[in-house]
């Protein structure tokens, strides 16, 4: 029996470390783990304040916008689906929109790409329920029930 049969792959181990870093709010350590040509994509532009495309140099702006708009009360990583240099991560998060006090809960799916074996993450796309987030910010009153 292989004692390492359940050990995470190098890519998954890296992402587990990165999510822990994010949870601690240690953005400089996160950035050091990313490829210099990393592109970080957040959907929801121009309505959600944290939406846009970021590089390692501008990633701090994303976390600043996120923390200005929302207080997070939960952030759970549930599963990793990996093939080659692609890793899909499933999770949930919950919080409150600071401007409105509205609670927010969403499933999220992250797509990461690595720059080859032993390489660093070079691509990130966050898929979230943008309508849910916008409703929490009361950007979307007519669709709050969708």
């Amino acid at each position, binding site marked *: 029996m292989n004692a390492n049969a359940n050990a995470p792959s190098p890519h998954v181990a890296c992402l587990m470390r990165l999510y822990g870093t994010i949870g601690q709010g240690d953005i400089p350590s996160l950035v050091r783990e990313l490829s210099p040509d990393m592109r970080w994509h957040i*959907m*929801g532009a*121009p*309505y*959600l304040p944290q939406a846009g495309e970021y590089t390692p140099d501008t990633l701090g702006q994303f976390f600043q916008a996120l923390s200005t708009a929302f207080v997070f009360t939960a952030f759970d990583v549930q*599963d*990793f*689906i*990996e*093939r080659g240099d*692609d*890793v*899909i991560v*499933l999770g949930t998060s919950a919080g409150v929109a600071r401007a409105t006090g509205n609670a927010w809960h969403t*499933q*999220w*799916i992250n*797509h990461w790409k690595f720059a080859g074996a032993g390489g660093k993450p070079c691509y990130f796309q966050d*898929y*979230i*329920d*943008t*309508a849910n*987030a*916008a409703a929490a910010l009361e*950007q*979307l009153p*007519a*669709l709050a*029930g*969708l």
Partner: protein
Amino acid sequence: MNTQNETLVRNFYADVWNQGHIDAAGKYYAEDYVDHNPAVPGQPAGLVGAKVVFSAFLTAFPDLTFTVDQVVSDGDKIAARYTAKGKNTGSFVGMPPTGKSMVVTGIELYRIAGGKVVERWGSFDQFGLMAQLGTIPAPAAS
């Protein structure tokens, strides 16, 4: 890599979404599949609910086309990134048709057992969809 699961998922998009064969959904989805992220208000459970979703979107966008941009499979799980395009010529969740076209990207994650989808998670830019249809106002200037 699980090529059988990849084939199942690719055939599902081609058959149900792109050909509009809603009645064929049972070939791909288990009767009691669990949808962790219901896509329409009041979506019933299981395969019946999946058909409600397919019908809602295909009624609103009769020319709806899904392009599977990438699949990532690992054991019994498979993720599909897609781009969906269509023109809103039918009623959509109670809203009248707008006549506008939309392009959205999204991702769906499936767990497969017994050759069928038994769990689904998914997310797409719903806000982007509504913005393209013109059913939400432009954001306020900051």
